[in-house]
């Protein structure tokens, strides 16, 4: 177990289009599906970023652009077989391995976060952060080209912006580090795989969430600010 601080980097997500990372919550009246926010600011949750990175690295490994074993090293492994039943689900945890990469939320710069946390409450009038999003509406067409009844839905989307997610390499016990891995390799792996990450969030195959992801070796935006 390393006693020094974990190695860090920053993942920079340059969003070029409207994007939507869902909360699973909707509003009956208003913008429909809402974007994830903290202190009113939109973000891409760390679990979402981690899943996107895992998919990009997995593809890069499958295509032979990075050495084998790197996906399991950074993101953990589920084991060879899928659980067949409830009892197997209990046992399968012993075949899983933890990953070494720690991913946090992708957020706006620190100046935004400090401003959002310290600004006075909006007593009357409109909160500027409520105006950051747009609402897109959509319907479904039936076989005859008519709008299907009851298919109108809406969702909130955010405008293009640049978000940054702090990354850290902190392998827990049981993490399968490849023999060939040396310090700093994980950054090279991510830098190789990131061009495969081209969209994020919902409807990214329908025009939303187009993104350019790059890696910065800086320590990130800083680990949050004391309250």
């Amino acid at each position, binding site marked *: 177990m390393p006693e020094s601080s974990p190695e860090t980097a920053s993942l920079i997500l340059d969003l070029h289009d409207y994007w939507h990372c869902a909360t699973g919550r909707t509003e009956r009246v208003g913008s429909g599906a809402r974007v994830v926010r903290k202190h009113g600011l939109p973000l891409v949750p760390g679990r979402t970023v981690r899943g996107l990175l895992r998919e990009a690295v997995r593809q890069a490994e499958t295509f032979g652009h990075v050495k084998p074993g790197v996906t399991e090293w950074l993101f953990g492994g589920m084991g060879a077989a899928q659980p067949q039943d409830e009892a197997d689900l209990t046992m399968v945890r012993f075949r899983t391995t933890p990953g070494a990469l*720690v991913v946090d939320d992708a957020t706006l710069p620190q100046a935004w976060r400090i401003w959002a946390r310290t600004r006075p409450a909006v007593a009357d009038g409109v909160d500027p952060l409520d105006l950051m999003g747009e609402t897109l509406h959509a319907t479904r067409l039936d076989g005859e080209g008519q709008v299907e009844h009851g298919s109108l839905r809406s969702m909130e989307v955010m405008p293009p912006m640049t978000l940054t997610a702090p990354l850290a390499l902190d392998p827990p016990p049981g993490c399968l580090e490849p023999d060939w891995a040396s310090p700093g390799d994980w950054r090279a792996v991510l830098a190789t795989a990131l061009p495969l990450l081209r969209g994020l969030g919902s409807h990214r195959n329908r025009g939303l969430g187009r993104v350019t992801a790059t890696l910065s070796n800086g320590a990130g935006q800083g680990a949050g600010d004391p309250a």
Partner: protein
Amino acid sequence: MTDATTIVLRLDLEGDALFIDAPTSAGPQETLSTIPGGVLLGVLARWYDKIEATGGPDLSWRVFHAGGVRFGNGLPLVDGRPLLPRPRSWAAEKAKPGDDESYTFVSEDGRVHHKVATRFARRTAIDHNTGRVRGGFLFAYRALMEGQSFVSRIVVAPEAKVALPFLERLYDRTWRIGRSRHAEYGRVRITRLDDPPAPPPHGGLIGTNAVSLLAVSDVAPLDHGRLDATLFGLPDKWQPCPGKTFLAWRTLSVYNGHRRAFDRERQVIVPGSVLAFTGPALSQDQADRLCATLDAGVGLGTERGLGACLANPPILERAEGAVDQKPAIAAVPAAPPDDALFAWLTRRHAARTLGDDARAIGRKNAERFEKLYDALWREARATGRPPGDLAPSPSQWGAVRDEANRATDLKDLRFRLFDKDEGCCAAGVGARVWKEEAPGLTLLEDKPASARALLEAAIDPKALGKQAMVDLSDAAKAELARLVVTDLAVHVPRLMADLARREEAR
């Protein structure tokens, strides 16, 4: 024999954190309202092998299993003092179930009530084979919200002092602890408090024949369900007093990371429970023995923070209701971000909130333009010149609107409109009509009236500040100016059309 060493740690949540000690797999995962001492014990367990190498299996057993190092739960820290769980005896009637009070804490004097902040999030998993949502993997977390602080006391017995150098590695750094800590959750900054607040004291015990114990943490009795007075250090003649006892139980099952499994389930008394006992008056020795037993922790799991109790704390004597309504201390507002996104948001906000102001100011200024056009067109008719020679045309107002839409701030707006080389109202062939003055017409105090002068006066920051219904920042004034110009650019051509119709009707 040397005394035990106490280390008091402050834990600041730099991100949301999730602490669960029940093996539930159905329904949302609700966090505990404190940071379990077992989590810190788990962090120390990273050096289990090194500690064992230092003092053998006996030392590692003392440190991690036998209570040689007791990691207290992290209790909420508010206004520089750790809080206590809200006593369950404060419910109005014992028979009536109260609200879920597990997230509410009170100060030692009972005057400050605090509810720990949580945040709800729903998540799912994506099947990488199909790229779609994986069936049966929808789940929800209710986590402790970032920005909160907690205090944990670690008591190191003399026989476990070899572990102190390893404990020093816990603080002055940021750890990831709790559930889902590899993505998004669990970032905690741990620092050591050099001048920690004193632990909450026991109440008066000598000579008393009634003792009420407040459970500050979960308590795991050795015999399930049998709450013997001797378990808590009271003499064996003391009996439970059910009428003054307010108990709640829950199931506890701690996850062991080394075994990758949950430990056996236990039934524990929840924090905030009040256990009352009565008996013969306590002597000095008996009171000291009671305090010593409680300070060492009661029941099982003391190494991970279970078993913390207070005897006759003052808070139990205080009636609920007299709460200090302290106003929240407002944070000093930080400067707004200085980037293109914030400028865009400011414009959007101004367009939504200053639209009425802009329209009112625009209409007031439009009256002046109407008089100017009327005078200039009469001049044109009198001299036989086309009206377009003397006043800006609708297409020129369209150009003004386009420039206003592109302007980023007031300085840029003035440049786009009035710069002598590039301004649409000052440069080129069309500039002449913007400077035409109406003979004998006084609309401005300090200069002759022309279309350009009226437009400049309409966006003067001082005048805008006076005319707006609310106080405006410089950025907001810039947006208001842009909105006023846009409104004029739309409205003045309409006025021109009305004037032309009236003229034809004569």
